[in-house]
């Protein structure tokens, strides 16, 4: 995996549990209905471990780390 990665989300799988926003608030906030709004751009190295924890902690496995260039 290249250095420049970002968070991707499967919007159909996401049920708005909101675990991700607790685990990595630097990258994710929740909208008025509890669904994640993901900060665009590369994940800073310092935040990457938290992002990985959010990915593995997602109850519906909707979150992923992907190359920055990937679509959505």
């Amino acid at each position: 995996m290249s250095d420049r990665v970002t968070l991707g989300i499967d919007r159909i799988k996401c049920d708005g549990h909101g675990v991700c926003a607790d685990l990595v608030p630097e990258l994710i906030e929740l909208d008025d209905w509890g669904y994640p709004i993901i900060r665009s751009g590369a994940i800073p190295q310092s935040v990457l471990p938290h992002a990985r924890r959010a990915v593995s902690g997602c109850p519906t496995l909707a979150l992923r780390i992907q190359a920055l260039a990937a679509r959505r």
Partner: protein
Amino acid sequence: MSIALLAGPPAAQGMERYADHQRRLGALPPATELIASIERSGLRGKGGAAFPVATKWRSVASQRAGTPVVLANGGEGEPLSRKDRMLMEQRPHLVIDGALLAATAVGANDIVLYIGADHAGAMQAMQRAVSERPGSERARLRLVSAPVRYVSGEETAAVHFVNAGIALPTSIPPRPFERGVDGRPTLVQNVETLAHVALIARFGEEWYRSLGVAGASGTTLITVGGAVPQTVLIEIHQGMTLADAVNIAGGITSESDAVLLGGYFGGWVESSRAWGLSLDADPLHRLGHSLGCGVVAVLPSGRCGVIETARILAYLAHESARQCGPCTFGLRAISAAAGRIAGLTSTPGDLERIQRWSGLLAGRGACHHPDGAAGLLASAFAVFSGEFTLHDDQRRCSIVNTQAVA
């Protein structure tokens, strides 16, 4: 008015039969070097996204896993559009020719003809057209009736329906060109686009380019509705303006302040600016507009843009596939608040809320349904800003006296 796709017998005569089609246009030419020719022709997709056709075909042809499939998309869920169903009713053999050519070009065998279930005339004509074809072609053509639903025509939804009987979008990746019908690389192409291919293959890219202007080649089908004598399908040369299209449709029947360009996924444009716009994908895109699937709807005088926008949002919220949270809940909430504003019953903060919420919709669904709704609403804020404020602040509508919201 007939130029290229609609040249030949007039619409009143119904579908052009296979024998007449062949007599008029000659036999189906071979697809030799067709992708390169399509590329030079400048043909763009006519389903809404205006994606370069040759690029799409190459991405299917270059897949390694499995024999590709062609899905001719005649779902046409956009309520203001008539072009795909009318084209299929009048020139089904152009669509079938284009689908066969596409199949040869990308190495596909099977072709799915995907037609909106409510387009009865189109389905009938396509069925008849298929039955007129030689057995070797008939064996490759499969007609599928698409459920009546706005999202049915979205390309992953079309593939999902053919595979599993569920006309709802799926998450990407994989995109249909990677894994589509039966898990095979699938070219999903709008039926009008395929009809253009049938002519480009016969008459060449130079001919096609000459029908348009530099940077926008060929012709395009437009549905003109609203403040015109009647909703009508026209074919225009690229480079023609919105005013040209409206004039061909018979001219406006009332003064008009705004035009809905591109349909429900398009946006409002002030009439004073709209008339001079060329109906070509790229220049429109640069100005923040979209031709979408070729809809021009002129808002008649006596109709309020805020009310019309609320009505469209209500439709789009109802038509959400309800698979993704931001679309299910965000669009529903936006629609409800817009309905209150339109009906002069807004609660404090409604206008600010829908402005904030609409900025949060784009890019947050598996498909572009929320993006389309957000774009429409943003254009409405720009064009009808005074009317929104009047509705929200003073509970008045400058156009419609009653509290009528459809």
